[in-house]
């Protein structure tokens, strides 16, 4: 595959250069599925090349092939025009290919320098590390790419954005020429995203080739020189940001027209369903991470909580749904005090909960899908009588649910762990949305999902709201909060520092509040902003 027209459009590239990386006709089959079907990808020196696709489209498989974690059944990899065979990740690293994973592979108790040296020790002699030389190179690399960092700082004390830079530094330290970033912005604030983009641009200018895996369309449009879209294991198109737009990309990616922003219409809030009063909650280590939160969610409205991950949102939500006993304060549901009630009591009171960590809380991966669909109702009719399970009823309803919520699965009896992330989340949504509820708590409901699934879940949530359910939405994705919420509360270090109207909220203002908590946050500011 050649695209003679493209090179002239990518600034700063010499068209005569061979691609730094070329993958040709890569095919990888797994039993019953072709994960990669004749995929070709060219990445030029100094190019930021976005790989766009839904979850399960084959992006990860392709990168595993590149990184030596999977052997392709067909096809060829060329580095600088030379065919190579990549045996394993060590081989890939030796050839200058490095990966920055979505979940950082860093040791929090070690320093920046120690983390960088792990696996690639710079030795003064066969026994001792050459720390001075390592420090010198780390500082120099950081300076060159615009982020100076103290090599002696413990990684655990760094913000997420800086931890990511450590990962990038680690790759650069290993003399990476081709850098693969897997969903690098998933955990960042808008400001941090801008900063990391600046770093990536510097890297590209310096001649590094970057493969940027993402499903966030606007980001891809902003950062990439070229975009390759994959769907169901095949390349379905190549685009240049200046010649495309979000709708075009979404359609390519999903294979049909997608409504990117849900038209949420006007809310008609009624009575207060959830009332939280001065709630204080401790985390597992005993630190008070929710420090007096007050909030109200009415029937028929979506209350969004914006905030950088780790500001107490998870603990707040767990206290509301009964998974965590509050240290103080009150939670009321429809006027009844339900503070400290058990998860089952809350469930029966009409509270549905889509947890942030679907593998930890939401699903039992080793169980069949059908069992997971009744995880919160298995003990009730029609799924059981007394202690006797009614497997026929469980299966029958599972099949109906699969149909109704369009969960893509070979059958109701496959293990939940074999489904894609999007389908796993659909299963949870199906379980939690598919019954009579008065309050729906959504914690990061679309994290790591593809646009198709996000659209689906958002539409389901809006439908619930319009049917008069109260929704509490927690998300680290500011765009999701802005798009979905009728009212927005910004959470910072365990308190809600501001509440504003969802229709008029300004992205930069919310982003700033998320990052700093506002200059003079406190009671005055909160009241001043209450919508």
């Amino acid at each position, binding site marked *: 595959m050649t695209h003679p027209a493209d090179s002239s459009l990518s600034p700063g590239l010499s068209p005569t250069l061979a691609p730094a990386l070329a993958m040709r006709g890569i095919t990888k089959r*797994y*039993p*019953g*599925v072709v*994960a990669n079907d004749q995929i070709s990808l060219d990445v030029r020196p100094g190019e930021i090349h976005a790989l766009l696709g839904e979850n*399960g*489209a084959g992006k990860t498989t392709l990168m595993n092939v590149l990184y030596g974690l999977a052997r392709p059944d067909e096809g060829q990899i060329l580095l600088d025009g030379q065919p190579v065979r990549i045996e394993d990740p060590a081989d890939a690293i030796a050839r200058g290919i490095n990966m920055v994973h979505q979940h950082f592979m860093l040791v929090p108790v070690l320093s920046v320098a120690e983390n960088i040296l792990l696996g690639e020790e710079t030795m003064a002699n066969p026994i001792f590390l050459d720390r001075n030389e390592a420090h010198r190179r780390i500082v120099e690399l950081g300076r060159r790419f615009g982020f100076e960092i103290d090599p002696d700082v413990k990684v655990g004390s760094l913000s997420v954005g800086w931890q990511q830079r450590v990962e990038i530094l680690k790759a650069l330290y290993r003399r990476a020429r081709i850098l693969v970033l897997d969903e690098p912005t998933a955990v960042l604030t808008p400001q941090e995203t801008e900063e990391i983009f600046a770093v990536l641009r510097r890297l590209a200018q310096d001649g590094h080739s970057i493969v940027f895996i993402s499903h966030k369309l606007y980001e891809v449009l902003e950062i990439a020189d070229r975009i390759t879209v994959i769907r*169901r*294991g095949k390349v379905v198109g190549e685009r240049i940001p200046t010649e495309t737009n979000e709708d075009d990309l979404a359609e390519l990616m999903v294979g049909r027209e997608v409504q990117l922003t849900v038209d949420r219409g006007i809310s008609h809030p009624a009575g207060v369903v959830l009332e939280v009063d001065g709630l204080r909650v401790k985390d597992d280590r005993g630190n008070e991470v929710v420090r007096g939160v007050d909030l109200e969610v009415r029937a028929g409205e979506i209350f969004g909580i914006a905030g950088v991950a780790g500001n107490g949102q998870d603990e707040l939500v767990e206290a509301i749904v009964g*998974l965590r006993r509050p240290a103080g304060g009150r939670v009321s549901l429809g006027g009844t005090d339900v503070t400290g009630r*058990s*998860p*089952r*009591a809350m*469930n029966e009171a009409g509270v549905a*909960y889509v*947890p942030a960590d679907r593998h*930890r*809380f*939401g*699903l*039992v*991966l*080793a*169980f069949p899908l059908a*069992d997971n669909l009744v*995880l*919160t109702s*298995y*003990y009730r009719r029609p799924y*059981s009588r007394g*202690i*006797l*399970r009614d*497997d026929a009823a469980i299966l029958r309803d599972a099949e109906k649910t699969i149909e109704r919520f369009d969960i*893509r*699965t*070979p059958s109701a009896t*496959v*293990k939940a*762990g*074999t*489904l*894609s992330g999007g*389908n796993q989340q659909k299963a949870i949504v199906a379980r939690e949305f598919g019954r009579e509820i008065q309050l729906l708590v959504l914690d990061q409901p679309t994290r790591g999902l593809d646009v198709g699934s996000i659209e689906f879940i958002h539409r389901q949530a809006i439908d619930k709201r319009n049917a008069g359910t109260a929704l509490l939405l927690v998300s680290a994705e500011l765009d999701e909060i802005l798009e979905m919420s009728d009212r927005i509360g910004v959470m910072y270090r365990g308190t809600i520092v501001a509440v504003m109207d969802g229709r008029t909220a300004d992205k930069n203002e919310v982003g700033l509040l998320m990052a700093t908590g506002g200059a003079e946050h406190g009671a005055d500011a909160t009241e001043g902003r209450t919508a």
Partner: protein
Amino acid sequence: MTPPVATPAGRSAGAFARAAWAAIALPFVAIVMALVVGALIILVSELLVTGRPFQPTLPLTAYQALFVGAFGSFDGLVATFVNAAPLVLGGLSVAIGFKAGLFNIGAQGQFLMGALGSVMAGVAVATWPPFLAIPIAVAAGLLAGAIMGFIPGILKALSGAHEVVTTIMLNYIAVGVLAALVSGPLKVPRSPSPVTYDVGNAAYPIILGRDGHLGILVALAGVAIIWWLLYRTTWGFEIRTVGANPEAARYAGMHPRAVIAFTMTLCGMLAGLAGTGVLLGVSHSMTSSFGTTVGFDSIAVALLARSNPVGIIFAAILFGAMRAGAGLMQIQAQIPVELVDVVQATILLFLVASPVLRALFRLRGVQTELGSTDTITRTYGGEAVR
């Protein structure tokens, strides 16, 4: 990942064969490898130790005798079943613990206490009619086992005390209690050796051949009940959920602590019932040295069967057969019966070190299909061991 699209026809035969192989590949390879190791030990001991003329076919002779002893005659077969019966119940005890994410090393102690409970009650009702005496003796064994299971269960539920530690401790306590009672209050007065009275009418009736007692049926009923409990009831669903993902169990409104206490109690009852079977079916009275290694062998049985209730029948028959055939092996090949222990221990070693086997025999597909998400137990940190 896009869900695999498989045609209905393609799933049936080939997929079934693959699934079947995936389920038994690892235990099968472990057994074969253990037999190979046993053969090497026989050869080496022949060469270095016995000083007899070297017979390169001795391992074959030995294994043949072992097989004939266990399956070659009706009496041999019955002996195999009698030996397998307590292993079935003990295996279920360990397996149901695994299902709940618990490692019940205390099966031995629960086994001993079950036997002790049965002998105490059995002696007391020895002259009653059997239809009353047997249920009473069995109930006493179940109760004693249940107490031995409940203690570590409630300790774990209330304080998090790890069941591996507490059940090992309780094994020692069981041995001590048994010795004290049998040489004290339960001892036949003026008997020269510490031995209890006979259980008389409380003994299991013989239902098969010369030695085949009711315990064989009890064991099979145990398999059916435990399978039904695990897969057909909400209790079983809770046990399996707590084992597979305790956090999700809490989210689903279950009470993992209560489930843990309940499951350990059930473990104790099953292992106790194994002890009851040996006492009422075989020994009929108790000496202070009562105590086979059934409780420990049960761990191997459960691991070999990968906690599958039906698989436990086959694993227990294998181990039972080795016990039953060992005598003939000793007579015909002059190989000490302890070789059987070596083979059993080697099977366990290979199973525990299953990643080694997987790498050696390229059982790669097996690794995922075996359900790498099935939890065997949890470490001190609560991390799942799969």
